[in-house]
């Protein structure tokens, strides 16, 4: 840009005038970004579909005929008894009474609980041997977000923002959406920036009525002309003050932060306004049905956000640990799968038809899976030692299954992928090397995957 935006604002005399604003937005869209990547990126952005509470891999993607055969019996002694969260001892194995089918050209298995996603299996790589350290929700959710179960490190989205920078500075580059008014386990700490500056932390956006971002608009009691007059006086004071103290970048930065805020005020509502979306598109996401409306809306918002350059969008499904099914898994999972399945498939299809799937990595999974052993008769406990996730788009070769759990789906045994490896792989697809991306903190070069983890090249068919 040859023209300093602030100069323009000043000389235009409009303060935050709309003409100036239009001009700036135009300029911004022309400016190309050159993120500092370590190798050629496959993906530009990530949509992380987080099934909070821990979905059962045994009932969705990881078919275990032996489980149905041994149902009702205790875990065979050939399997090491794990420490479980709820600690039910000697519980019988619980059948997964599903209808399994192979799908697409690739013939990947999926159960009847995800009929729509099943139609996208050729775009999906299923990771069947994930494992994590977090045995309970707080630790598991923390680890899936920050790579460790202990609080205090930056979230993956913060690392991505730190590594790649923003592609649209009028919007936050790390955005979180929840499918209900609840609070996810660990609250906003999940998208905190840990020891990094708050600039990199995620911003929770709310779809639907109300403000998408907290304090985005002046309070209703303060009409626009009043707000404009206030800002004009403020910037006048600030400019005079900055002129008296030249070479204070902090003061300049602050003047600019108000301009950015104002542009966010203009752009964010447009980004989350679904009025321009056709009924057909909304229906594709399931927004025309009560069961799928909430998550469908968020999936559609996610598409709109990545279209506008947001780097990392995280969608919570079952916000507040709703996927957790210690008892009555049949009812719980049937309902949650219904709420998530069509919207997710709609997202994949919509991204694909717009040519966005190529550059958008979609990740699906929870903080852990569930045990083959029953709990309270008809539920399953947490299983951190083996569970499934999947990835699609962003350079991932679809239609393949990577890794395996044992015959009962209890432990990951083949091509095991720890959360470190999953994060390293996500970063790799974005062009970031998990060992080369460092942030100096207290004399240590901190890395996003805590010096561990590696890209699993099978994801790109290598």
């Amino acid at each position, binding site marked *: 840009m040859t023209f300093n935006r602030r100069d323009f604002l000043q000389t235009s005399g409009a303060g935050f005038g709309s003409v100036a604003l239009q001009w700036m937005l135009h300029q911004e869209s022309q400016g190309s970004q050159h993120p500092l990547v370590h190798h050629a990126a496959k993906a530009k952005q990530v949509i992380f579909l987080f099934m909070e509470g821990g979905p059962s891999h045994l009932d969705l993607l990881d078919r275990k005929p032996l489980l149905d055969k041994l149902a009702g019996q205790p875990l065979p002694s050939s399997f090491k008894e794990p420490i479980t969260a709820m600690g039910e001892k000697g519980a019988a194995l619980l059948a997964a009474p599903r209808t399994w089918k192979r799908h697409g050209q690739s013939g990947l298995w999926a159960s009847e609980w995800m009929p729509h996603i099943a139609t996208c299996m050729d775009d999906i790589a299923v990771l069947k041997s994930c494992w994590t350290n977090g045995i309970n929700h707080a630790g598991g959710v923390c680890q899936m977000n920050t790579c460790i179960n202990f609080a205090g490190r930056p979230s993956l989205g913060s690392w991505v923002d730190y590594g790649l920078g923003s592609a649209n500075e009028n919007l936050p580059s790390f955005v979180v959406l929840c499918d209900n008014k609840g609070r996810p386990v660990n609250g906003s700490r999940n998208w905190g920036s840990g020891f990094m500056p708050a600039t990199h932390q995620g911003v929770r956006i709310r779809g639907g009525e109300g403000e998408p971002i*907290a304090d985005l608009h002046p309070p209703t009691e303060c009409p626009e002309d009043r707000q404009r007059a206030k800002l004009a006086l403020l910037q006048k004071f600030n400019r005079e003050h900055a002129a008296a103290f030249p070479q204070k970048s902090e003061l300049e930065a602050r003047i600019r932060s108000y301009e950015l805020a104002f542009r966010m005020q203009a752009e964010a509502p447009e980004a989350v306004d679904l009025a321009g979306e056709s009924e057909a598109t909304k229906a594709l996401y399931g927004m025309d049905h009560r069961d799928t409306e909430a998550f469908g809306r968020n999936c559609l918002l996610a598409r709109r956000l990545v279209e506008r350059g947001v780097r990392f969008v995280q969608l919570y499904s079952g916000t507040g640990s709703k996927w957790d099914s210690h008892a009555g898994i049949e009812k719980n999972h049937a309902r949650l799968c219904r709420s998530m399945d069509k919207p997710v498939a709609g997202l994949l299809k919509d991204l694909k038809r717009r040519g966005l799937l190529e550059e958008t990595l979609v990740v699906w999974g929870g903080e852990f899976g569930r045990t083959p052993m029953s709990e309270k008769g008809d539920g399953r406990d947490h299983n951190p030692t083996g569970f499934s996730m999947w990835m699609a788009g962003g350079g991932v070769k679809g239609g393949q299954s990577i890794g395996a759990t044992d015959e009962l789906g209890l432990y990951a045994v083949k091509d095991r992928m720890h959360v470190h490896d999953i994060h390293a792989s996500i970063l790799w697809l974005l062009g970031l090397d998990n060992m080369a991306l460092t942030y100096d903190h207290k004399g240590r070069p901190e890395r996003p995957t805590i010096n561990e983890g590696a890209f699993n090249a099978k994801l790109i068919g290598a």
Partner: protein
Amino acid sequence: MRRVIHFILLCLLVSQADGESWWAFQPLKQVSPPELPGLKNPVDQFVLSRLREQGMTFAPKVTPETRLRRLFVTLVGMPPTLAEADAFLTDNPVGAWERQINALLEDPRYGEHWATMWLDLVRYSDSDGWNQDAYRPHIWRYRDYVVNAFNDDKPYPEFVREQLAGDELDGDNPEHLEAAGYLRLGIYEYNQRDVRSLWSDVLNEITDTTGDVFLGMSVGCARCHDHKFDDITQKDYFKLRAFFEPIIWRDDLTASTAFEKERYAEQMGKWKAATKSIHDEIAVLLKPYHDRKWKSTVDKFPLDIQACFHKPVSERDSLEHKMAYLVARQFEEEGGGPLKSMKKEDEVAYEALKKSLAAYDDLKPKPLSPVMTATAFDGPHSPTVIPGVEEAVSPGFLSAMPGDASIDSQKKRLALAEWIANPNNPLTTRVLVNRIWQQHFGEGLVSTASDFGRKGQRASHPELLDWLACEFVRNEWSIKHLHRIMLRSWTWQQSTLHPQMKDYQKRDPDEKMLWRGRVRRLSAEGVRDSMLMLSGELLAEVGGPGVNEDVPRRALYVKRFRNDNDTFLHAFDMTPGLKSTAQRNETTTPTQALTMINGDYALGRAKVWSKRLQDDDRSTAMLARDAMRSAWGREPTGDEIGQAVPFLEKSQDSWTDFCHVLLNSNEFLFVH
């Protein structure tokens, strides 16, 4: 033998790298300030002599009013009121500055402000920090202990001893027990069955934090491998952890005096005697339910943990006792007592018994003041084992540092505290003096304040640092003495503008040479407290339990929850209380702008403030002047008043809007 060889190897490695051991491990140098005619303040002597070597000199002093605002923000965390400013500006100039410094050092707001530095270091929070993130109702006593320590200018060695080993000093002294709350500050939540890993994580985290806070060394790397950059071995790490190994958490102790406890026990005896039969009946009624609840709680744990729980206390070692404690916590936290699944008739009977018990309430003593603290287990101490190596280690000091004090097996942490708070420990004083410097100047002489190791920065003025450290020890480890030296220096009182700024910036782009003052933003707490001060709402109460955000007390007292990172204070970079923080980030974000210009909080303060102004019947120009003076700490220009008056006369709401503009203005948010 192996150890000796290891040591020799280490020395060889070190000498190859640097020719001598790392500067921060060397003893303090006894240096005198360079003689410079006309200069009496040692800080100035050190700083100016270095500047002169480069042909540079100080910036002029700031104006008295700006200097005063800087002083207030530095010492008490908020700018002066108009009355305070007027009192200083009209005081007899001879000695006015010293009198003002002394007055603020005696102001209780001083401790409230300086406590924040320490609370950031020890990752203080009012909540547990896992999922439920429950409020810790008694930990505020630790926070108040820190506030009082600063206000009382507690000598630093005492401060160290009381926090690391308060229980080993004089177990009955309430203050010592409150201070030992340091050992409870980490994150912990009860609902975890893998208690063995949980406890190991907790101990590691206390070890890491202790290295950061007291030694300015990040020892954490050595948990998994010998430190790659510093002379800290994995064994050193676990030797340090071994000091903390026998800790047990205590929720049954109180911060009450012996007299109060005696009276309580006496009264309790009376009440118990009077209600014995009722209590007996209750016990019989509840027993089956309690037993069932205990069984279901304990059964959920791995068998080895259940075994710890069932072992009699007298046969347990410290780890077993700790495991049993963590099991019992789950019983209590999940409502062990009052029972959900009681039979109807039992419930009725229970209610009736409680009612008859209530008839004796006037006999029942008021509860004592519980304190969240820790003590050492008084049975056998379990060993610390290096994982993987499976080698047991005893408590011991960092091998690269001096010190061979014997360690009393019953007062291990006290030995650690004595080693840390020893004038011959080269890290302790340098680290602390540097932290104090950082709070005055925006950056430490060592800019990496919790990393004095090889990956950190070297001191910009090593001789000044050592002189300050020696001076600190000479003056009974008084932090207030350090304040006086720094605040009276020209170095501290310099303007943020320098006539040769452009030239100097080229020669010293990082401004390490201290040739001008630094512009700094108010801290998160500073922004909130200053707004409340301007609006006139700020309550002057000191200490006590945490309050909700809407209570107009200082931000220090607002309950901090580890899982809520999106509050007003967090927008301005308050720490989340998860890791030790030596220096906060200072960000400028659109989120701050939105919070300040659109959010309720700043606008609400503006409304209250403007109402106060409007109740005054002086002229608009006079009131505008007062408002600008109190927000900016300087006399506004005629031109500025000329802009304010027509703005204010536009409408009823203009006053609120004007105050709101002032709260958003850079001159309010920054200190020059």
